[in-house]
């Protein structure tokens, strides 16, 4: 029986301009990834909302499929309070092979002012499993 599952992985970004590798596996019963979302977790008082806080790239099935390479935005607390929309889910339709690795990277684009404050990036995969 098919079901829908959301898997989240957290990346730690500890320096300005850091490159954080992504290397993970998804549950073996995952058949398809139909959505992906990357969100910066943290508040940076000196930073306005920006579309290019970081960039991330993700390949599926041992680098056989590379559907995503995009910017990761940051929404300031002030914007978040008045905003009526939330950072959306990127729709995908990527078939997954059992045991295939997910690889890629996240890169900080140095949008914070000094001193640098460590933060997390939460990457969520929406999966169809059976």
């Amino acid at each position, binding site marked *: 029986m098919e079901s829908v599952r959301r898997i989240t992985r957290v990346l730690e970004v500890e320096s300005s301009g850091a*490159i954080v*590798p992504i290397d993970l596996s998804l549950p073996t019963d995952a058949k398809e990834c139909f959505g992906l979302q990357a969100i910066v977790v943290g508040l940076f008082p000196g930073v306005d909302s920006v579309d290019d806080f970081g960039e991330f*790239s993700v390949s599926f099935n041992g*680098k056989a499929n*590379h559907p995503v390479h995009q910017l990761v935005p940051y929404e300031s607390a002030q914007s978040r309070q008045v905003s009526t929309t939330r950072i959306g889910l990127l729709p995908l339709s990527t078939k997954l092979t059992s045991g295939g690795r997910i690889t890629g990277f996240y890169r900080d684009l140095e949008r914070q002012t000094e001193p640098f404050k460590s933060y997390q990036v939460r990457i969520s995969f929406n999966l169809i499993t059976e």
Partner: protein
Amino acid sequence: MLLSSRGVADCYMDFFTVPLLGAEFTTPANRGWLFLVSDSLPQGLEIISETHALKVGASQPSSLQEFTGQLLVKLPEGATLDRLDFIRIIPTTSNEK
């Protein structure tokens, strides 16, 4: 194995050299895979591509470094590296149906 597992039946292969003429250098976009063969990389060197990004630390990378598409190369201050060499592979036919 590396290529067949990605559905590549045949490919074009050559050496690809990136001359480093400044602190930052961007290559033209292409659809090939680039496997880094240069060694003695300076600490702080960054090579960023569409699928993989490398920042050289205190030690040299221990595994095969594979990049795809367009590259952005950032040289650290004071580095004397003048070129980067890659093996470039461009798929010509695939097994995918």
